[in-house]
């Protein structure tokens, strides 16, 4: 114990009363402390941001599943759901979702009264089962997998299904 150089000082500081401690702090020490804070704060802030930058990991994959909502919230079918960029249909077999992104250049296609689709950008037309009726598109529209999450419909834009597939109500 007696051999430790710093220990008596620590003991002294601990044993000092608050008044003694305040008296022990001279003006020079206060100013020095303030200066230290002034330069240390931005350095610490910058270091923190730098560490945050080094630890950043970009997202490796985009989300493909999108919650469309409860069927009861849709007043009419088909309905365009921007959250999943799909047209949601309902027939006697259940629900199905058609990709609303045109296979030509990616514009939004619009469902027609006869359940066919039309792209207003470049005039492509698709049949109700997604086949190309009029170009310039050459690839059919995709039908996408639907599933339930509680009472809500969820579409997975990464999973294509056959046009005949329905999700039971």
């Amino acid at each position, binding site marked *: 114990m007696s051999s430790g150089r710093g220990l008596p000082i620590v003991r002294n500081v601990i044993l000092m009363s608050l008044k003694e401690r305040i008296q022990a702090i001279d*003006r*020079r020490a206060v*100013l*020095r402390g303030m*200066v230290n804070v*002034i*330069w240390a704060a*931005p350095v610490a*802030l910058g270091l923190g941001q730098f560490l945050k930058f080094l630890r950043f990991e970009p997202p490796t994959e*985009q989300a493909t599943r999108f919650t469309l909502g409860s069927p009861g919230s849709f007043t009419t079918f088909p309905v365009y759901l921007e959250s999943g*960029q799909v047209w949601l249909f309902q027939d006697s077999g259940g629900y199905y979702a058609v990709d609303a*992104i045109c296979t030509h*250049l*990616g*514009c*939004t296609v619009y469902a027609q009264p006869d359940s066919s689709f039309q792209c*207003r*950008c*470049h*005039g492509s*037309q698709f049949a109700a089962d997604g086949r190309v*009726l*009029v*170009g*310039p598109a050459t690839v059919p529209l995709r039908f996408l997998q639907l599933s339930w999450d509680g009472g809500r419909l969820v579409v997975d834009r990464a999973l294509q299904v056959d046009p005949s597939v329905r999700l039971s109500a």
Partner: protein
Amino acid sequence: MSFHKRKLAGSVGVPITLIIGTVALTGALLAAVNRQVNPAWSRWQDNPQVRLITPTLNGEAELCLTCHNGIEQISDSHPVDTFGCVVCHGGDRLSLDQEVAHTGLIGSEANPGNPADLSVVEVSCGSADCHSGDVANDRDHIERVTRSVQASYAGAINALLDLNGLAQEGVYYGNLAVSDEDVVNPAAVEALRRFDPESFDNPAVTEFAEECLTCHVASQTVTDEPYYHRGTGCSSCHTVYARNGLYQGSDPTLSQTETGHAATHELTTAIPYTTCNHCHNRGTHDLETLTFTPRDDLDGVEALSGSERRMAELYTADSTHYAVCQYELDCIDCHTANEVMGDGDIYTNEADARRVECRTCHGTLEESPATVTLEDPNDVAFRRARLNPFYDVFVGNTVLLSPDGDAMGHIRVENDLYSLSSKVGGPTYLIPQVMGSGCEQDVERQRAADCQECHTYEP
């Protein structure tokens, strides 16, 4: 003062350099915070926020709309949420610094903001899957345009060479070197060599190059005078410029007091006569004397309206011998896309590229105009109609046929009546037919000047 500083610093044992450094560091920090809180781009928005879009075409996020907040969507065929900005304009998609964001913009040297200039059009409008598409599908517009007389200026160039004894048999020149392995029209040629004025070492050619070689869609307009403002390349025709050349849109970054921008950031196929008028009918030019005399009869035109104004703007004051269709209609109501943009062949003068005659719409004493009933939904006529907001056409409609077999969807035939719907928002006209009328025409004389002998404008 310095003494006082030294004394103060010395009194607390802190080096003066540390104080200065601390103050500088704090200042830099405050500046950085201020830059973060009030970034340069925030001046373009009332409620500053970064505007990020991810175009469905490529899925690559971009921030351009943060500053270009309020800019017009270029067209319904190019929705911004599908195409974004960068696919046409280039630049650094994720930078909010003006200089960095505009690094690598696709544009001409004179107008970096115009990606439709012919010098760069192959990587913008004409890039893969866009307007340099399939010839068979009538979508190779860039090739058509670069071969057209509007881009080649071949008429004036070859006439000049001919006038000065510099023409060579079978050799033709144009503003751009182009070739065509599949010549369809007998009047067309296989190639144009690039016109290099210096290679001729002729004073007339040199003067022509200096004074005249700006009247084509590949060149920038050279004057800031009213009426002359226009784009280059595709935007020569497909963007509308105000007469005063000022931007009138909602992009806060574009000046509304300095010329150099289209009236709005929009493309159109409904090209008004005023756009054609930026180049055509601007005055008289003479290739023999190499002089251009600008019109001086436009004072007071702004006060006119309707047909009077169109007449005054379209034609010089002493030219009052035009038929009704020549001033009531817009230029593109008669002149087809194949004539104006080119049909894929290479011509050495404008007359060879022209198709439509008076009889195309009015017929003759012996024949009615040629027509076609549209049955294939892939016919280009439907595409053109869809791109134009002022007329429509449907499968089963009978429409006029141009002499080169182009369906003119805006001219419908029903119950032997021929009606033209303006492509530019004007009224629908019933087209009078020659057959059965008292017309005394010579069937072979079908130029406008021939018919104007009787059908003239009466002020």
